[in-house]
């Protein structure tokens, strides 16, 4: 797996989920992506 590509992907997905974090259909996924991004030191 290419680290840079994975980081970019996670970052982009996180940005979208962040814009919609109050949406109940997205909340759980948002929390998980934040954890994942933090684990990888992605802003």
């Amino acid at each position, binding site marked *: *797996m*290419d*680290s*840079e*590509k*994975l980081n*970019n*992907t*996670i970052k*982009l*997905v996180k*940005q*979208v*989920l962040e*814009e*919609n974090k109050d*949406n109940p*259909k*997205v909340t*759980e*996924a948002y929390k*998980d*992506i934040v954890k*994942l991004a933090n*684990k*990888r030191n992605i802003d």
Partner: protein
Amino acid sequence: MPDNQLVEKSKLTLFQRIKKNSLIKKISGERYDKAPEYLKVDPDVIQALMAKSYLNISHLPDGFALEYIHENTDIFKELNDELQDYYLGIKIELIKLLPGERALQYIDEHPNAFKNLDFSLQKHFLAKKPEMFRFLDNDTQKRIIFSDESYKYIKYLPAKKQVKYLTQKTEDEVHLIDGVPDQNGINYDGFTLKTEPFFFSQELHCFDENALLKAIKLNKDILDRGWRDSDDSETREKWKMIHDLYDYVDLSKLPQDTKVKILTIDNRFISKCDTDTLIKFIDGNPVLLRLLPQERQDEIIEIDPSMNIYNSNRDKSFNNHVQEGLDINSNPMIRKVLTDKKVLDTIDPNRIDDFVKNPSEEKFKELIIDTYGENAKRVLESRPGITSDIIPNLRIFDPVIFEEFGEATVHNQLTYNTKFSILLADFADHPEKIQEYKKFEKLTDGLFIQNSAGNEEKLSEYLRFSNLLPLLDGESLTTDRIKSLRLAIADRKIIETKTIKLENLEDLDMYVAKRNKMYDEALKKVTDPESVKEIISKRFFGIDYGEKTGNDEGIYTASTLTMKELLHYYSIDNLLKDKRTYESDLFDKDDLDAIELANIISKIDDVEVLSKIYNVLAEKENVISPIEFETIKQKIPLQYSRELVSQLLTPEKAREKIENGEEGIAIEQEDGGIEIINLTGADFKIMMHSFLSVGQTNSGFRISPDIDKSELWKYFENGCSTISNCVIEPNMLNSCAVNENVINFGFSNIDPRLIIGMSHQDAHVDSRNRSVDPFFRFSTVKFNYPEELIRKTAAQISGVEEKDATHDYNEVTTYRNEQDPNKVGSDNLGGKIMPDYIVVFGEITDTHRNLAKAMGKNGKPLPIVKINEENYRNNMVARAHKKDTEHTIVSKEDSEFIKEIKEINSDEGRER
């Protein structure tokens, strides 16, 4: 002003009229070019210009030139080639005005223009230049072949398509853009095209020879394996479909050389050939005369009396046998020998004659050994259970196959029913093709699972790209093209991307853009979250998203996994909560995070959010792609398997436990050197296969009491390709058979890669004989770490969780043969998996002892593990509530301090 617009004759001023008259009087091309616009478009001026010379047409604006040609059609063919080409580039319909030869020349030089002609013109030119058929779009091609019944154009279709028509049923929607009437004058927008091989039985002469021969080879393989009697309805149907084709086939319109080549591949067609062809066929191999019906033999002998020595009428009893040999259902042994040129070139004709007259398994093998030498001998002698019906063809024994692919590959063709064996036969005949295949292997490294099933997948993909591969060489083999090829292969399970044409370098260069555009378009049409996830999963992870439906519903194989199935079958939530996952050397951090990302996306249920995710990822190039995800998929089940195997009791671990003073385990040596490991209370985990000592097996084989079980295990070759095992431990001893007619084989020193299925209930593994890619039914597969496997087994047996109504045990399924080529050879029965010990509940009998000696390794008998049941509980209710905590990752919220507080609170609660 547009140069093709009619200009109203407006009133000219006096001055303008004088200028016009002056121009007309002294008209020439050069003067016309310098004239003002209002005069250039004046019809009188144009008429004067053209009256001067038709060659002045080159000075006219294009629109006026075309209009002039339209009104004076004769001049077009008088123009020079350059001018004609110029105007044809603007209006291809002008080609109608050219003489036949000139028109054909233009089409030849501009094949892309052919596509733009209207349908009637295309058909007109096809009559003269049928090879232009290739330049038509797919729908027009099908329309011409099938709607107009012009089968002669079939040979211009891609070879793969032709082979498909002769070997499979097909169904296509054909769209007619212009709704032009067909030959019956019927006007419609399209039709559904369904074909099966039988349709082409009278049209074989319309196929390209190579495609025809390829199809015959493939069909022969199906007929030889006698799938007519298969339990599987799909394979029976396929057999019947090909059988029908052959019953009605007409070879009479084929060239003689082609017919001879067909007979060389499959002499079932003998009865369909004329005498001259048969003479050519048996030329150099007169013993083949015996394959012919008597009247055909008589015809040939009349032409050439010296052939009489081969006349089967010399022996009346053999004559019946020859007749039987012509029957499509006859003994395949004779066909395999008589269609192998190397055997016929090497072996004395009298010996072959004797074999044909009185075939036997022994003679068959001797012919192979005497033709192909020591390698073949070693392989065949190591597997005495191999019979002629199992050997797919004799070319697999060719020295070039041993040299280029290894002895393990030859063994695997005997272990499984494979399509790869057909390709190997082709490689033996054409060794120059091997390097091309090896090039493909190198280009696609890592994209296929490293086992026999993976090889079959690789073969399919190799054939899919066989036209493209030779073009990828030297300078044309660029980094971008390699990436595109690898992506196309990583996409192979996605039906939509498989329709993208990939036959030349241009196609390959366009692949990424075309596939991405296809997904972009698909997104615009969907309105529910699951469908968006489907598109995201396909584009970025290379697999379908949702569970399989229709005939494939509930089916699991590693190679056809969808994203939702992966998350379920591989217990991803549990995988990502277990410390062992992160401590494993199998994954790197990126692998696990990619899995987690897929898991996160699967939890989102909002179509707009998901669409936004797709769009932001689609805009960027530097995001994950299917190539990366392919290898991760393969690692997940292996992680579980490795952990399971590491926990299994081995004789070495048993000795260690005793040395460490563990209670409840002891070892004694019996006379005869058998080691008995007595379990009377020590913990253990055992994976065992219960082997019926009498009764019917899943392979349909009936075991009688007097059959030698060790010989059966070692040498039986026609059974299912898997071993179904149960995992037991002190709290749960349920396995699939506990009566007296069972022998239990324990497997502990087993390669984890051999585990292909796991379930806390019966895994419903496919039990077709010699299947190279066994599948699992009814969505029962569930890979887990061993603790969870055991817990869920107990839970389902006791009904605490969903119960398997008919089975009280779990299943761990392994291949029956090694998959690592380094572990497959003639010194270990082609890699057959052997047990590590025998497991006995209750008393050890002489049957156990004899089996332990017969199945021994390295001169020592197998150990016997005796489980003293009275010392163990079979208390699944208690077990069912016990979740594994030792390996679970503690979440950040549950810090040690918090846990302590919780404990204090709960203690206080109890005290109150």
